[in-house]
């Protein structure tokens, strides 16, 4: 294994690592009673893995408290300024003209009428755009943040229906929009691949994050053929688009050679680096801030509008605000790709899986590195004697598909968890029991030990909370008037990730406060709130005394709010910065004072003091230290160690989802009447924020189950429902009260014991709904969304 660079050890840390159950949350309605859990699967830590020795993993301190979001009051009062609410002197407004063909070339662009329109300042097309390097997409390089590598307005070629072909700058947004409507474009259309069938005819095994999306163990087809009981099923999931409450926007200015950007991005540093490369300038010549982001969900990365706004601003020598219309978001910012999947399960009569086959196809564009990795839950959730997992991908002429909350697993857990339900029915085994019988004792594909896994506890607690009725192959659905009522369950899964690049700076000041600085992003999930709590706990300060700066690429580190890993990445960065700070503080200890001569490794911080870890009574207060050394502040910055823990251990979050649905026997209308989710995600750092994350994910998954569907017209590759009126997501009446809970068992190998919670809510509910629909109606619906016509 790779040894983390942070080799600090805490002498009195409990190496036996018996988890202190008091660290589990208690006293909350949304918390599992400690006594309800037993036998948490915890692995012995490897020597030298610093996080396994981290006292904060087991700290009974202030972590977990249901603190409100720090930015809540600002947002409620309308004082939080988002990307499109910043201004620069002399700023003009941008509007885009989008292509109406999927592939071909621009024969002519007539901008004369637009030029003459009131307020117009400048018009940019491929004929006058500056030379720009193609942007680096996410996963194509360590710093890539773009949705695609397509050159931006560099020639007359058109690559998707909706591509920007002209930028209009005007004195007001209304004038820019009006002038954009006057631009007339003539195209020479070329043959385009805009149907799923054509795109996947020659599909090949996909690569994702540097590996093939393929796993073969044994002869799964033979095992399936020989299985006592089996199911072999086809599923499909639709294309989806992002609908963040804040439409994408950027406000840019070129100031003395510096590109200044007020952005909405999930990764301030990576966005800055990526756009710097496009313009051939140093990343340090980009100053990008994104203090508030109105929802990210995977879609707030670097898209063409950023580059076009910056390019037009440079040519026009005017600051530019570019706010996409809702249609604009659908035209140029990607969403989730559609999939067709096969799941085949073979089992002995005892329910133990002998074959697990999960294969299928999806589409991407030729210019990105994003294939929906929909087999990831199948790789890690259940044991099976033989497995064949494979994602094949074809390319299509369309808007770049991209990351959308729980990429891969959101669409992959739906068929996996539905197929298990079908198998359970055939076997006559309760679906919960079937999952327990196939609970692996180590990672089924990598063979590694689990860092911590208590999904069985989640099943049992979820079943208890929900009032799950065990079943043995018979439906338990009942009728209430016109409504058919049924219940179903599914597992939830999401991988642990920690991207490299984390760093943090901590500054202690003589007034007893601390400032934490980290180039993290805040999309509304509570990053600054959680970061302040972790830092306070680690520093030995009150939560209120820790200030957090984030959302600025000039701050330390290169963090990204994606993959449910930013909290872990910040946690590791804080650990490293804290160690560096302790070393700085140790160097300040004057001769004759307590702790003088102690090595930094023996020291830590507690109660506003530097203390001897082995005997915290030996201490010197921060204030004393600073005063005696004649300083008003002390600062330390450090990088997080590489994510060795994820190489050493199988690290995943899991959960169990139970739901009740009602299907109208006359019309097929579907209502979700009850839902419970219990999650095993390591330590929970803030009950309130966590509950919101779980609930948000559950709602998004219900949306996937019930209604979300991009109308991509396969005749011309055009999205036909680019609006909140025509693209359905749940309204309040579609969402019941959502019950969430968690095991709260710390992961000894995750920074601060927490694995990440942003996406797992997305996985499980869609299958639980489908399974409940079967219980209610006897119908198996395997293509999403489950609209009423499929249930009539």
């Amino acid at each position, binding site marked *: 294994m790779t040894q983390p660079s942070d080799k600090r050890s805490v002498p009195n840390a409990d190496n036996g690592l018996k988890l202190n159950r008091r660290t589990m949350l208690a006293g909350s309605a949304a918390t599992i009673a400690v006594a309800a859990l037993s036998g948490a699967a915890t692995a012995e830590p490897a020597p030298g893995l610093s996080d396994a020795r981290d006292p904060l993993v087991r700290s009974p301190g202030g972590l977990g408290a249901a603190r409100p979001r720090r930015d809540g009051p600002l947002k409620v009062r309308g004082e939080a300024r988002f990307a499109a609410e910043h201004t620069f002197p002399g700023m003009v407004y941008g509007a885009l003209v989008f292509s109406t063909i999927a592939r071909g070339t621009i024969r002519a662009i007539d901008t004369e009428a637009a030029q003459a329109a009131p307020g117009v300042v400048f018009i940019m097309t491929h004929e006058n755009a500056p030379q720009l390097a193609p942007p680096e997409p996410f996963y194509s390089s360590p710093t890539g943040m773009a949705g695609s590598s397509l050159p931006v307005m560099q020639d007359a070629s058109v690559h998707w229906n909706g591509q920007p072909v002209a930028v209009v700058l005007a004195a007001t947004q209304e004038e820019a929009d009006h002038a954009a409507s006057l631009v007339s474009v003539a195209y020479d259309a070329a043959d385009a691949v805009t149907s799923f069938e054509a795109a996947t005819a020659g599909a090949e095994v996909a690569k994702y994050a540097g590996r093939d999306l393929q796993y073969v163990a044994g002869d799964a087809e033979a095992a399936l053929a020989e299985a006592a009981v089996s199911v072999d099923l086809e599923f499909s999931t639709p294309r989806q688009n992002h609908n963040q409450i804040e439409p994408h926007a950027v406000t840019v200015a070129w100031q003395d050679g510096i590109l200044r950007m007020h952005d909405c991005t999930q990764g301030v540093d990576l966005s800055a680096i990526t756009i710097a490369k496009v313009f051939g300038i140093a990343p340090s010549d980009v100053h990008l801030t994104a203090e508030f982001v109105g929802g990210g969900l995977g879609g707030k990365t670097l898209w063409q509008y950023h580059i076009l706004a910056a390019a037009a601003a440079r040519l026009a020598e005017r600051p530019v605000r570019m706010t996409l219309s809702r249609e604009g978001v659908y035209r140029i910012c990607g969403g989730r790709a559609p999939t067709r999947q096969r799941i085949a399960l073979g089992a002995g009569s005892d329910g133990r899986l002998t074959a697990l086959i999960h294969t299928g196809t999806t589409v991407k564009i030729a210019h990105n590195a994003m294939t929906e990795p929909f087999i990831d839950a199948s790789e890690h959730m259940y044991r099976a004697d033989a497995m064949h997992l494979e994602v094949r991908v074809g390319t299509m002429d369309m808007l770049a598909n991209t990351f959308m909350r729980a990429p891969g697993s959101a669409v992959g857990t739906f068929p996996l968890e539905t197929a298990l339900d079908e198998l359970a029915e055939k076997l006559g085994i309760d679906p919960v029991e079937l999952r327990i019988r196939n609970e692996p004792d180590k990672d089924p594909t990598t063979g590694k030990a689990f860092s911590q896994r208590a999904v069985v506890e989640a099943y049992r607690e979820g079943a208890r909370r929900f009032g799950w009725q065990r079943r043995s192959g018979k439906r338990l659905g009942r009728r209430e008037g016109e409504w058919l009522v049924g219940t179903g369950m599914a597992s939830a899964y999401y991988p642990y990730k920690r991207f490299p690049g984390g760093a943090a700076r901590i500054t202690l000041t003589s007034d007893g406060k601390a400032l934490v600085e980290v180039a993290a992003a805040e999309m509304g999930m509570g990053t600054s709130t959680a970061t302040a709590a972790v830092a306070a706990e680690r520093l030995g300060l009150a939560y209120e005394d820790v200030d957090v700066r984030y959302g600025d690429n000039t701050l330390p580190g290169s963090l990204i709010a994606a993959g449910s890993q930013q909290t872990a990445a910040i946690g590791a960065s804080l650990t490293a910065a804290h160690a560096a700070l302790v070393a700085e503080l140790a160097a300040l200890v004057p001769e004759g004072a307590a702790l003088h001569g102690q090595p930094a490794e023996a020291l830590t911080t507690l109660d506003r003091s530097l203390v001897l870890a082995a005997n915290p009574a030996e201490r010197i207060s921060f204030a004393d230290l600073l005063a005696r050394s004649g300083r008003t502040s002390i600062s330390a910055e450090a990088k997080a160690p590489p994510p060795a823990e994820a190489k050493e251990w199988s690290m995943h979050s899991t959960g169990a989802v139970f739901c009740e649905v009602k299907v109208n026997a006359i019309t097929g209308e579907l209502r979700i009447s009850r839902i419970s989710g219990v999650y095993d995600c390591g330590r929970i750092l803030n009950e309130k924020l966590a509950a919101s994350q779980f609930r948000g994910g559950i709602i998004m998954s219900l949306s996937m189950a019930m209604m979300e569907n991009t109308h991509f017209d396969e005749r011309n590759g055009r999205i036909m429902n680019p609006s909140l*009126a025509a693209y359905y997501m749940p309204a309040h009446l579609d969402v019941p009260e959502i019950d969430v809970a968690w095991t709260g068992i710390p992961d000894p190998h995750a920074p601060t014991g927490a694995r990440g919670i942003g996406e797992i809510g997305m996985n499980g509910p869609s299958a639980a709904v489908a399974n409940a629909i079967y219980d209610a109606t006897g119908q198996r619906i395997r293509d999403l969304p489950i609209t009423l016509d499929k249930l009539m």
Partner: protein
Amino acid sequence: MRPFAYSKATSEPDAIARGGETATKFLGAGTNLVDLMREGVEVPAALVDVTGLSGSIEETDNGGLMIGAAASNTAVAESAAVRERYPALTRAILSGASAQIRNMATVGGNILQRTRCTYFYDLEGSRCNKRRPGEGCDAIDGFNRGHGILGVSQDCIATHPSDMCVALAAFDALVHLAGPGGRRIVPLADLHRLPGDTPDVETVLAPGELITSVELPAAPVDARSTYRKVRDRASYAFALVSVAAVLRVTDGRIAEVRIALGGVAPKPWRTREAEDALVGATPGETAFVRAADIALSGATTRPGNAFKPELMHRTIVAVLQDLAGASE
């Protein structure tokens, strides 16, 4: 949005004088018209705001109600007289849009709102015979889940999206018009035209003609009415199908029945043949199924809306059974 002139009418004659100008449109709350202007689908040179004209709801001499065209949807839905005597109308209005939109939207504007066919809205990227007559229709072989199955043509399969109008049609509402040619009254069920080969012509309104009020004739005595809407989410969605029905049962026989269908046709769709077949029949599944069969006998579907005849059929039967059950 293109530049346009705006003025607010101070009186009905003032509105009619202004509305006669070329490329002028009357503006209610703008909940649909302004959207269409933003999309460039509607490009009026001038708007005459008629929200200052009558929005009162008053009793008529013959026991009905006269509703000023500027009345908000909410005002109509909440009117005690409407709730008591025309409950299907309240239900229909409250099932539409959102509270915010209903608070703004006017009765006149609701009647004259345009289809939500997404190809109609896609000015730059799609063909639409309603927008540019003769260029073709991309909905017919495209996404047409929400589209019509009754009264549609080879040139257009768009639906009229209103809920309110379906209930108004069931109550035999009359639309009062005023224009340069004088005043006239048109039954609501006859106000909208079927598309035929001129889907761009959507109503019988003459140029410059203004809806001034909607008259509800006296509600049938002892009749029950309701509105049922079926859609893809629990609120804030247009109807896939909807039914407004009025039923009066006397001595075990259907004495009077009115059925209007929504979400399936280019206009609020009265089913008079089905109604005629029901009068005198014993209320019950047999009669209701037969009526639904008649109502849907002319249905034509596309792949995207092939489920609609069955869904409409079931909904008609369920609504009539519901009303018959309540009448017993």
